[in-house]
């Protein structure tokens, strides 16, 4: 059994706990045990806090990393934003001795020291590299015959010089994991486009941020998909809460259910529906639920 510490971040545990629960259970079935990263905080959000003060951003992110260093475990995140902050901070601290010294002075005051001994992983990147689609396919008990719009999001693959995950314009590794669950990853226009939430834009300028989500939703809907599959609770929130805001502000209705990959995997592994939290979303699509029920038969109980 491989072991990683589970960095929760903010939105998964505090808004969409189904993502947290699904991640723990599905990874266990794939032979990875997740251990609580006790006392972790906000990553902190890369576009916002890094904008405000680089040293604060670096110090708070490094504190989260040191908690896992002290456990001797690599970190797992389920969020592109947390991944962006923690990987970038971890790399900067490992590569820049001056910044490391400055940040370690702050960390010393609270009883920690950044040593640079661990790596930060994202669930999609981890599953792709360490587990692989074949092993996932073997663990699937109910192939999920769904047409899905896959949303990679930005900070999973970009900046590519830091991420080393291949093409940022036409990546395949996440599609392969989705297809291992029996689903079809349907191509749609501007698939790699941003959801519009990041960089503090959702917080600062909601309307243009939502307009970016509208563009994505239009293209997804045109492709005739059953649902959206994402890799990030913030993109998840932008699409889920966003659809209700878009309805109010722009009078547009898409009714597209939003699932994190861990939740799709949970469905395909036959985990009970209520433990995956899919119906805790704001967007509930009865037609989609019936389709899930048809595919899963008795497993929904």
């Amino acid at each position, binding site marked *: 059994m491989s072991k990683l510490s589970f960095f929760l971040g903010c939105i998964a545990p*505090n808004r969409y706990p189904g993502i947290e629960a699904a991640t723990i259970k599905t990874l266990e079935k794939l032979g990875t045990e997740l251990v609580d990263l006790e006392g972790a905080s906000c990553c902190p959000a890369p576009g916002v806090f890094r904008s405000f003060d680089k040293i604060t951003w670096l110090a708070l992110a490094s504190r989260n990393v040191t908690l896992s260093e002290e456990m001797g475990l690599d970190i797992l995140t389920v969020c592109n934003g947390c991944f962006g902050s923690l990987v970038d901070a971890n790399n900067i601290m490992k590569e820049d001795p001056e910044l490391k010294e400055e940040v370690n002075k702050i960390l010393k*005051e*609270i009883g920690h020291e950044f040593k640079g001994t661990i790596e930060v992983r994202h669930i999609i990147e981890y599953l792709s590299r360490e587990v692989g689609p074949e092993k996932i396919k073997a663990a699937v008990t109910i192939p999920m015959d769904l047409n899905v719009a896959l949303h990679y999001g930005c900070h999973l693959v970009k900046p590519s010089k830091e991420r080393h995950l291949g093409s940022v314009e036409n990546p395949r590794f996440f599609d392969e994991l989705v297809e291992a669950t029996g689903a079809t990853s349907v191509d749609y226009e501007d698939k790699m486009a941003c959801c519009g939430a990041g960089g503090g834009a959702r917080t600062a300028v909601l309307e243009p941020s939502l307009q970016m989500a509208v563009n994505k939703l239009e293209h997804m809907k045109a492709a005739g998909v059953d649902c959206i599959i994402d890799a990030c609770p913030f993109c998840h929130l932008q699409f889920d809460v966003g659809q209700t805001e878009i309805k109010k502000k722009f009078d547009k209705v898409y009714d597209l259910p939003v699932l994190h990959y861990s939740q799709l995997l949970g469905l395909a592994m036959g985990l009970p529906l209520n433990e995956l939290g899919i119906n805790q979303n704001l967007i509930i699509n009865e037609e989609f639920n019936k389709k899930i029920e048809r595919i899963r038969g008795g497993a929904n109980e």
Partner: protein
Amino acid sequence: MSDIIKTSDFDMEFRDEVFKEPDADKITLCFNCTGCTSGCPMAEQEPEYNIRKFLRMANLGMKDALLNSPYLWYCTTCYKCQERCPQGVKNVDTLLKIRTIAIQNGIMLDNHRKVSQLVIKLGHAVPINDDAKEKRKDVGLDDTPPTVHKFEDALGEVQKLLKISGFNELVAEKEETS
């Protein structure tokens, strides 16, 4: 017609400050191909948000116009421009540095100040609430996540860190000045 740019508005110290960010000086290599802005998903929504123009302004030291532009806060940090720049300009990283200088000059949006206060108070930008506690129980999790929400000592560490780093002071509510 655009206003005439006056060289007296150029502040080279501001440019030097921007260039303290690693590789930010690569903006001097920009030859205006406009690949960044033409591919920008935010520029598609709001043409006033123009990353090429902003970096140009930074290179000219147009401090006041840049720091006071409301569009400085429109970037979603999707990194599309940075990926496609043929000159290796660090568009996003440089923009974040410009934002940092704005914050140091007391220019900060109210909503960003509120998010900062949440992290100072609770250690999370998006903290737990009663609805989320119920949802956690419904999926079989403990109602409080094992983060700073559960461990008071850990929250104390975060609060001390933010105080030492100067963050509290940086994002504190400013007294109204007439």
